[in-house]
């Protein structure tokens, strides 16, 4: 083996080091004020689709119910697997015991829906403020309904969680009930974060080809089929907003595999290679397995690059996906990052992503909406990624936008979705150029 080869290998090892020694701290603009973001309850919209045997019962107000139906857009299901137990005056005035009322509602629900195997009691702003103990309720009701129905609880309240943090809270409530992986079991891989089934299947196929066949997913499609976790679990985060879940998993002995998030060619390659390394897979095999996907994604992105290169983009805080998506748009499509706003910045999980940002990227955490909109108006980026409440008003001011929520609901991870992801940003720009009215 040549010296150069060894050096190359060493360099790669160093690059994987989670804590770069002398990286200067990047300035972060932290703001506080009005936030134009959804609360954590919104995660129910995709979580209930992912976990097909689970039901989400929000214990909250009419506002919570209204939020869910508004965020879900049109209600097309006969009876979706979520509902709200709306607290009323008599629940608050102590005329009835809220816990008794909850028992009544849950018993009725479970009677009517025998297909439910896991029930999440989801806390909301009002239930948190009146300190309605849903953990106690879950325990009490669980004692009655197990083993048919497992009852868990988490909070998706807006006073504690922002949008995708609802998924984090939900998944961390599942961690304690995951079966234990025996200490002497061979090493297992766990993919953490809900992915569309089609994307999950793509990743599972790639891991199988690499020779990693013990792969679990959290959440599992069937909430009662939870994967095991233990000291021999190595987990890969598929989503950047899972800080609590990661801590809970580490509490059960699992270790995180440090990687970029699987967006675009670079992100997906890095994510898969990191898993390969952690499982001692021959790097040559890994490269061989990922080569076709890389090539396909590169080809597809080449068509879109001319439309996006040099275009300036601002992200308003929304889903915490902002940082890895911005990295993808900058590195693989040549976009210029003006401001990358995120509701919450998980420094450890995003360290490698942030390292890739150019020096002039304005990074902001939290939100003061009016000030941030002032910056958008001053910057006049070519495209602004924002929530549904802001998109039309900004378009009305002549600024092209991309609704952030689509990034959460569309399959965007992995090689074969890289171009779809880029297209989400290219389409509004193309449309702006097409229209002559």
């Amino acid at each position, binding site marked *: 083996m040549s010296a150069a080869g060894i050096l190359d290998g060493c360099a790669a090892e160093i690059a994987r080091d989670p804590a770069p020694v002398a990286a200067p701290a990047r300035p972060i603009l932290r703001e506080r*004020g*009005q*936030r*134009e*973001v*959804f*609360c*954590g*309850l*919104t995660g129910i919209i995709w979580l209930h689709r992912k976990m097909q045997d689970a039901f989400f019962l929000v*214990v909250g*107000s*009419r*506002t919570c*119910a*209204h*939020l869910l*139906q*508004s*965020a879900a857009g*049109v*209600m*097309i299901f*006969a*009876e979706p697997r*979520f*509902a*709200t*137990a*709306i*607290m*009323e*005056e008599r*629940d*608050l005035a102590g005329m009835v015991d*809220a816990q008794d*009322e*909850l028992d*009544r*509602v849950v018993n*009725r*629900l479970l009677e009517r829906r025998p297909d439910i195997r896991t029930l999440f009691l989801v806390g909301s*702003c*009002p239930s948190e*403020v*009146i300190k309605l103990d849903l953990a106690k309720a879950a325990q009490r009701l669980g004692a009655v309904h197990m083993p048919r129905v497992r009852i868990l609880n988490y909070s998706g*309240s*807006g*006073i*504690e969680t922002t949008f995708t943090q609802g998924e984090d809270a939900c998944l961390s409530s599942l961690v304690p009930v995951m079966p234990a992986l025996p200490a002497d079991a061979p090493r297992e891989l766990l993919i953490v974060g809900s992915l569309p089934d089609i994307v999950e299947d793509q990743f599972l196929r790639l891991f199988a080809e690499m020779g990693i066949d013990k792969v679990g997913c959290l959440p599992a499609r069937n909430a009662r089929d939870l994967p095991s976790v233990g000291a021999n679990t190595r987990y890969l985060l598929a989503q950047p907003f899972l800080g609590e879940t990661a801590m809970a998993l580490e509490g059960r002995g699992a270790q995180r595999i440090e990687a970029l998030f699987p967006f675009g060619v670079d992100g997906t390659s890095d994510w898969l290679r990191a898993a390969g390394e952690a499982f001692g897979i021959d790097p040559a095999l890994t490269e061989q397995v990922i080569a076709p996907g890389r090539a396909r994604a590169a080809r597809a992105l080449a068509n879109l690059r001319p439309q996006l290169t040099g275009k300036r983009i601002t992200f308003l805080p929304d889903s915490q996906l902002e940082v890895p998506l911005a990295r993808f748009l900058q590195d693989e499509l040549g976009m210029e990052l003006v401001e990358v706003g995120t509701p919450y910045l998980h420094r450890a999980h995003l360290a490698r992503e942030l390292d890739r940002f150019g020096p002039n990227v304005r990074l902001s955490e939290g939100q003061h909406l*009016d000030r941030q909109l002032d910056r958008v108006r001053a910057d006049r980026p070519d495209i602004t990624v924002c*929530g*549904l*409440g*802001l*998109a*039309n*008003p900004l*378009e*009305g001011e002549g600024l092209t936008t991309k609704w952030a929520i689509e990034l959460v609901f569309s399959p965007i991870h992995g090689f074969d979705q890289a171009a779809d992801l880029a297209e989400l940003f290219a389409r509004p720009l193309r449309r702006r150029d097409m229209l002559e009215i």
Partner: protein
Amino acid sequence: MQLAVWTYEGPPHVGAMRVATAMEKLHYVLHAPQGDTYADLLFTMIERRGKRPPVTYTTFEARDLGKDTAQIFQDAAREAVARFKPQAIIVGASCTAELIQDDPAGLSEAMGLPCPVIPLELPSYQRKENWGAAETFYQIVRNLADKSLVREPREGRAARANILGPTALGFRHRDDLVEIRKILALLGVEVNLVAPLGATPEDITRIGSADFNIVLYPEIADEAARWLEKTFDQPAVRTIPIGVGATRSFIADVAELAGADPTPALGDTSSRMPWWSRSVDSTYLTSKRVFIFGDATHAVAAARIAREELGFEVCGLGCYSREFAREVRAEAARCGVEPLITDDHLAVEDAIAAAAPELVLGTQMERHIAKRLGIPCAVISAPVHVQDFPARHSPQMGFEGANVIFDTWVHPLVMGLEEHLLTMFREDFEFSDEAGASHHAAHSPRKSSVHTEVEAPVADIAVTEAPDFGATGWTAEAERELKKIPFFVRGKARRNTEAFAAADGRAEIDLETLYDAKAHYAR
């Protein structure tokens, strides 16, 4: 606690937002946690507004509780007033802030803000969206109206009216307003003020100079109109001009209060609905069974039009607004049906399935229910979705509104001439009735999973081999006969026949049963 999957109305502060968003130069400071901002998207996405609703959300978090949420409110209010320079602000709490009892009214009073502050008490755990809108509008009017205003004598000037009720996110409010203005112009009545839509707080101060009020949407404007009646001695026109007959009554009522001649408005030549309804193609509409659900005002108006102007049979009528249930009960009595007063859409779904109507008139939710049941549907009331904020002029009120209603309700049905042709050609081997009606595929009855319609076989013989033959109890011969019935009534014929067979204790459905059932259900 009430278990809800879908709600017809949002919380009361959303009603307040509808009023604030409709007005100009008014700002709403809402004490609320993050997440409550979702309500903005109702206006910007569903109604496609190009401006943010004029609402500042204080966005308090768990860690602020018990410490400085009051300070957060005051900072937000001060900043909002400085930035947006409103002529007045309304202040209040959403459901969560109501629980922490920061008293936005007292807090903002203590701040000495440079504009009038109107405090709102909207009990989130008792009341809902429409009530919130009505209360907000009432408070705005009560707080801002110049009570010292003396009306000029009526002699020598045109009569003046206020048009009250249109808001943001209202079902066709924008277009109804155009029609009402048209009628008032024909009657020579001046519009003193339209509110809330397009009014500024300063405009509201001169609400007392009108001679009378027109209450277009009682769910929103009735409360304010009653106060105006008392305070300024302004009578109110409460006839809702939806439908030809109601429009005529409305014109007569306005003309009487204005001392005007109703003839020019009554003679509007663009009123085509009466002839469209009389023309022979509409004969097929006779006694079509229609199920109606919505807010009280629109549901009652729809029932009247259905009965009197289209010759339908109302087989179900209800509303989700308890506050206005009385009107619905009275109309239900005239229709000879049990009124359905509920905000539980599952109860509505059950009632629709049981009534087996040929047309459903309802809200966005009934649209989905009807789609699932394979029944044609038209939307008549809020809550509605993005497709019910059309680009074109599409009112419900006035003679043009009646024209629009005729088209909208009849469109999802199979037209008379088409029904005739379908019957003529259904034996033709080239005619595939699986294709459905020639228009509006989205509304045409589809094979829904609700019924066990056998998937389109190539030849009739395939039907006899269908796997579920034994389960349904249909003989091959009866099944073949059923296929000869036009597709748009076939599902109903199947259901009726099966219900008849079950009630009559017949295990097998043969030709005899099919025709016995037909005779049984004949009308």
